[in-house]
């Protein structure tokens, strides 16, 4: 495997693990808050969608069946992704799912040139906003497979490596 050849110093590994854990924490809390709040719905957020994909978001909000599904997926998706990232479990899967969610949020209210929003933002954004930054940070977590650093993936990847090598040995044995 190619990534196997990449070397990280202990401090780099710690930094990547920290990045993974903080993003996970954020996801987890966003999920838990929504689960705890009775009657929480994404409808408001979806309805104020702007930009090229706005129609799709509006359609989601106005379709009660679909909205129910979205609400549940969002709540539990955020929570599970958060948990996965924090403990470093299946990081490539949870991280990629996280990136997809973040990009869905991003595309709902994209700070593209020429779009003007009435809601006050807590900063100033041009194309890049915090959703995009978080998504990019997650991309780093995914491609460096940061779940292996102080995370359960270390154990899991250890297992698969071993079973891989067992397999190879088995194949070699068959070939003999």
């Amino acid at each position: 495997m190619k990534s196997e050849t990449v070397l990280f110093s202990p401090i780099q590994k710690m930094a990547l693990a920290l990045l993974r854990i903080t993003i996970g924490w954020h996801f987890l809390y966003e999920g838990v808050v929504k689960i705890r709040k009775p009657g929480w719905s994404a409808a408001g957020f979806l309805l104020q969608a702007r930009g090229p994909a706005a129609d799709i978001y509006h359609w989601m909000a106005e379709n009660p069946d679909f909205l129910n599904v979205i609400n549940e997926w969002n709540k539990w998706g955020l929570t599970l992704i958060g948990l996965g990232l924090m403990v470093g479990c299946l990081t490539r899967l949870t991280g990629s799912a996280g990136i997809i969610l973040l990009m869905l949020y991003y595309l709902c209210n994209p700070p593209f040139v020429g779009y003007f929003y009435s809601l006050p933002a807590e900063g100033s954004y041009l194309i890049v906003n915090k959703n995009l930054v978080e998504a990019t940070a997650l991309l780093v977590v995914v491609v460096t497979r940061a779940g292996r650093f102080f995370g359960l993936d270390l154990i899991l990847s250890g297992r698969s490596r071993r079973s891989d090598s067992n397999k190879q040995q088995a194949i070699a044995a068959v070939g003999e």
Partner: protein
Amino acid sequence: MKQSDSNGETESATPRPIKEGKIERREVLQGLSSLPTLGLFGYSLCRQAAYEDAQDRQRQPTSEPTARRPAIQVALLGAGAQGEVLLNSMLRIPGLYVRAVCDIWTEYNLKRTVNTLKKYKIEANGYEDYREMLEREKDLEAVVVATPDFWHARHTIDCLRAGKHVYCEKEMSNSLEDAGQMVLAARETGRLLQIGHQRRSHPRYQHCYRKLLREANLLGRIVTAYGQWNRSVKPDQGWPKRYAIPEERLKQYGYPSMAHFRNWRWYKGMGGGPIVDLGSHQIDIFNWFLGSPPDYVTASGGTDYYDPKTHEWYDTVMAIYEYSTPAGKARAYYQTQTTNGSQGYFETFMGDQGTLVLSESEAAYSGAIYREVSAPAWDEWVRRGYITGPKVQTVRQDSQIPLDVRESVSPDEHRIPVHLTVPYHQSHLENFFQSIRGEARLNCPAETGYETAVTVLKVNEAVEAHRRLSFRPGDFRVPS
């Protein structure tokens, strides 16, 4: 960065020899090393949740006040959009217990509401038929009715006859005859009937009426009033197809189809269209602030935008009322349109000494009063805190145009420093429950609701008649 890896867990250019069937202890320990962060998260979450729960308890202190006096047992009849809003407010009012919920949409609205209550640790019984609820729930003291307008009369009258106090949403009814029966039922039974014109209990409206108009007379002689509710285009209300109500049940409750059931507002015989839905709140304020109901109404309206097949009531209505107020003649214009939401909703009263602009909302038009230049100074009222000091007017520095002497100086703007700090309907509900305990008087009793219904429903008649219609003084009262 090239760095040789001293600890064995990381991949190095040359893979370590793997020990058959055994995971290294160091690997396991390191792999588990981020689990404690979950503990930290859990701890923080518990702390945070404890604070939030404490705030919730402040909002609905069920234990303390109920220890002193028994909780009022209340039922919600009609758990739709507005039912949910009212319920959320009731959950914040101390000394209430929501004992039952009734709604014919058992598979959706009823279920959702009962489940929501469970989250608040309230075990409410759910019913489809309100008569069964009245029969079984003997301890009920009050019922909050939030069903579609054409059901209000039957629900309210039967609840009153069963000895319950009733809070009934506006519009009192879509038929005046039925509204009259509601007034009579309240009189006969001696039970309280509050109509849901919630601005009557809004602290800003009460402040404006009592302090600014009656006590300080800041507007002087009011000659005109204006009100509007502009609302953006809204698609029809849909429904999750798998939770559709069986046709038989729909028919039983007077709905030809699911579309009628969800969009009852737009159909004749069920609702009254936007003038009733939206306008009645604000036309109610005309009557209140001007001190009398009107003499005449002229109106124009129509289904100009939507499909008249699904929108039987007018999507656009403009009405002019003529009043003989205790102070003299006055005219009030009201418009509602449902195709453009710009400038939202507010009411304006204009007297010879000042102008009052206000609305229920805290976001826009949250209360301003303008002094005519010729009016006596308002410093006294600013000192008393009735209004804020005038807004300092800034002159644009870059303006090249000299001020024209013919222009009248723009009046000073003062703000009204009274704000609603609870959800819109809470104060009005509180007034109802306090009245049940004998601690207050209803702010919108049946008679007042009836007067408003007469004033509002006449607009639809005037649209059809294409001429000015007059009210007789007797129209506004229900004879015993």
